[in-house]
């Protein structure tokens, strides 16, 4: 059984919490940290670089688990802006909803939002994977460079605007596509990829029902006829 370390934010400051997680986590044994009374606080469990299990028991604020490496962080509630921004590896799971910019600029690892995510989910994504069980807001995956965004519900307007090499899969309706994004046929490889990510996220869903969105690559070089509307 994992050793559980409770850290109560009615008694600790955010600085003390992060200092502990950066420098005082026991090594060797399987460790699970429970962060109690987060009460919407920002910057919890940021900059982790250890194979720890972190449970945040309640709603949390901005930048939760920012730049995460190796750790598995679960938020038992909703989160504010930019959860798991610049995530490098490990897993961040939000049991509720996420506000804007979830997984922004993530390089690796997996972010799972079990309910909805607001606008710009996966903006500037650079290689990580994001699975949203609900829907995402407008401009999601804006300028996403690499990695995968899976949306089981609907996607808001301008999905994948100015997309580079990231791939988006949407199970529900797409309100509109952004500049240079296009819907493409699902291949067997796409179905396998969606199935793999859904399994990793712990979600049962028919991968064949998803739509694939990727870049037209028509904005990769400046040219006069592009109309400058992107």
């Amino acid at each position, binding site marked *: 059984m994992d050793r559980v370390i409770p850290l109560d934010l009615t008694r600790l400051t955010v600085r003390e919490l992060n*200092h502990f997680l950066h420098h005082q986590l026991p090594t060797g044994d399987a460790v699970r940290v429970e962060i109690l009374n987060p009460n919407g606080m920002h*910057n919890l469990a940021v900059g982790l670089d250890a194979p720890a299990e972190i449970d945040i028991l309640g709603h949390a604020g901005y930048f939760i688990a920012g*730049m995460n490496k190796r750790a598995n962080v679960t938020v038992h509630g909703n989160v504010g802006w930019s959860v798991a921004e610049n995530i490098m590896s490990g897993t961040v799971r939000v049991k509720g909803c996420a506000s804007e910019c979830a997984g922004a*600029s993530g*390089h690796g690892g997996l972010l799972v939002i079990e309910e909805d995510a607001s606008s710009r989910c996966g903006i*500037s994504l650079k290689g990580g994977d994001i699975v949203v069980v609900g829907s995402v807001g407008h401009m999601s995956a804006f*300028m996403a*460079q690499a990695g995968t965004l899976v949306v089981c519900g609907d996607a808001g307007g301008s999905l994948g605007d100015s997309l580079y090499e990231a791939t988006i899969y949407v199970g529900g309706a797409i309100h509109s596509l952004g500049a240079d994004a296009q819907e493409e046929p699902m291949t067997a490889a796409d179905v396998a990829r969606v199935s793999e990510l859904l399994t990793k996220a712990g979600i049962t869903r028919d991968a064949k029902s998803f739509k694939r969105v990727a870049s037209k690559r028509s904005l*990769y070089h400046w040219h006069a006829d592009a109309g400058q509307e992107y």
Partner: protein
Amino acid sequence: MSEQIHREESFTFDRHVLDYIQQAAEHGLYDIRGLGAKRKLPTFDDLVFLTASASRYPLEGYREKCVSKTVLGTRFAKKPIELETPVTIAGMSFGALSANVKEALGRAATEIGTSTTTGDGGMTPEERQSSKTLVYQCLPSRYGFNPDDLRKANAIELVIGQGAKPGGGGMLLGQKVSERVAGMRTLPAGIDQRSACRHPDWTGPDDLTIKINELREITDWQVPIYVKMGATRVREDVKLAVKAGADVVVIDGMQGGTAATQQCFIEHAGIPTLAALPLAVQALEEMDVFGTVQLIISGGIRSGADVAKALALGADAVAIGQAVLMALGCNSSTYSHDGERIDATDDYHKLGTAPGYCHHCHTGRCPVGITTQAPELETRMTPEWGAKRLKNYLQVLTMELTTLARACGKSNVHHLEREDLVALTIEAAAMAKVPLAGTNWIPGL
């Protein structure tokens, strides 16, 4: 009897404007180029020092000590930056510059005791290894940005904008996106790459406060956090940066350079460095943090006299970019190879330009091997040669600075003050908020 022709060039549509209109009509493209504003602007040249005479006591120019040590980031960081000179090297990306150049900057900065700065595209091992004090930029694109390099940095510079293109984002044209550059930025090689104009994970000043705190938490509050902005609404922007928790504010005036952006930004956005600096100082004074939050000014700084004037107006340090490249040979007619000077004029001509006029950084075909990723060109500027040149230049700037400070009777360059300056033009007097020479008149006050 010869026919007399009356020629009158239009002021509104002069030859320069005609050429612009006809080029636009011919190609349907706007101009993209490198470096900074070329138009005539009020500069530090429009100020002069009232050095000591009977009413002030000078220090002996060579033998009496004049301190140039500069400390940045004293507000919140546990480890402020300590420099031997207030002349720092501005952020310029690997991608815009060759890896050789980035290494040369690090070597020269380390030798002279100052800092250098990364740029869009992340931190190269060469520049980290060669730089004793390295400032790591956190830019909107987040190309190559990662927590490992963040923790290796001696300071973090959160870039909101730059003087050459405030509000405009950035670009690196495909010619310069080599396999290595593309790999660091997680993009396909050879594409025209866009750097976003807004950060992906925060928007307004309240978010910025939380973002700064995130960076501090990740780095355990060890290193200073700078906030860099292009000079537009300087007074308001500086106040917001201070409120958000910046240790150091960096203001980049419109003469600041770039590797590539639209000419309409370079020449028509932002305000001159001379106008920006007093506004930034005013903001710090109004918030009662002058001296607590340090101020770095950049944008067209060229000489030790410029540095001295910037410090007298209230800056703690300056950052230089274009002048660094010029010290390395930018716009020189020759480059160095095995100790010989090789003529590069033909390569300038192939770009449609000539030494002294080149601003073709965006093409990646830099004739002197500075703003390039082409293997055959980047060997034209070796780290050893470049570091020596740049060290000499930084040394001259510091010597000129201390010489002027001594002549003003100051034993520390940071004791230079506004009272040491007067302006030669009404415009400069109004912008710098110092009297017009020979008067006690400061327009606007």
